[in-house]
């Protein structure tokens, strides 16, 4: 039996990419600085986010979406810092997608939010394929995980904008080689900005706050340009 070829040339995640683009435009128009957080389970995303929300809430309006397969535990923890927290429970799905984010944002006034954080499901593989419309993506690596995580999961490190090394207070006990970790990050994502923090002691957090404030200022500036 003969066959014929039909050319298609379609990106499989086109729907997600289009929706993510719409979300990104919406965030820009409303002047909200949106940051995604990805990491393996247990690397300290929620503790880091607690610190971020707590610190930023002093002079900014903050909100967070947190993704997990099950439970509302993370949302409950983060609500100590701000009431604007929504949990996305994905059931069996190992990543967030743009549609879940859009749905979770329903009825929120973005123009009244300065910083929105989207904490992905703990997973270093699947989230790398899905754009959520965020302006910046932070990938977290904890000092207790080992220096070679970036080499083992190059795609997620490469598709992120900033690397955060967490649990630095445990670095010595875990014999974590921070120089090697930085070298490995540079190998998979040349030029990537790296921050070393401890959510427990608060060390290194100020530099992250500064980065976020600068990012917000830029977002606000481009919004002025948009409305002019």
């Amino acid at each position, binding site marked *: 039996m003969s*066959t*014929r*070829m039909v050319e*298609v040339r379609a990106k*499989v995640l086109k729907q997600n990419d289009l929706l993510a683009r719409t979300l990104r435009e919406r965030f820009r128009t409303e002047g909200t600085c949106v940051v995604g957080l990805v990491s393996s389970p247990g690397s300290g995303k929620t503790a880091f986010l607690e610190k971020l929300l707590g610190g930023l809430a002093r002079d900014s309006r903050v909100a967070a979406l947190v993704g997990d397969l099950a439970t509302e535990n993370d949302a409950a923890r983060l609500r100590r810092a701000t009431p604007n927290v929504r949990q996305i429970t994905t059931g069996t799905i190992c990543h967030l997608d743009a549609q879940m984010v859009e749905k979770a944002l329903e009825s929120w006034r973005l123009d009244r939010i300065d910083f929105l954080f989207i904490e992905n499901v703990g997973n270093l593989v699947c989230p790398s*394929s899905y754009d959520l419309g965020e302006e910046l993506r932070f990938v977290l690596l904890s000092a207790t995980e080992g220096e070679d995580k*970036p080499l083992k999961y190059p795609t997620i490190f490469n598709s992120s904008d900033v690397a955060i090394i967490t649990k630095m207070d445990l670095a010595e006990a875990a014999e974590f080689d921070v120089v090697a970790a930085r070298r490995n990050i540079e190998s998979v994502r040349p030029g990537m900005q790296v921050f070393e923090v401890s959510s427990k002691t608060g060390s290194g957090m100020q530099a992250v706050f500064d980065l976020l404030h600068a990012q917000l200022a830029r977002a606000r500036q481009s919004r002025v340009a948009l409305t002019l």
Partner: protein
Amino acid sequence: MHELSIAISMIDQITEESERRGGLDVEAVHLKLGIFSGVDKDALQFAYELACEGSVLEGSRLVIETVPLVIYCADCKKDRLPPSVYQLSCPECGSPGQKIVTGREIEVSFLEIAA
């Protein structure tokens, strides 16, 4: 394992394409899959078969073409194959490659249709 989600997105997309063209008898789907896409080839192959059951694509084959990781070397001003997926540097001059040219694709290229 998000390959099942990817397979379902793919099937939805092809079903739409088929309807738009008045119903196609698809024998094979050709997919370009970058090695830096975060999608595993074998897992996708497996998920595809499962996801096709009960759809218009049931019984069709998935043919995956692997696309290598290519970076652009700003110093050599050339596209280069890095030494590995975890070392994004130019194999000639060693400069870090900040721009990815290919390797992230998850793209249906064409369909084989029974004539």
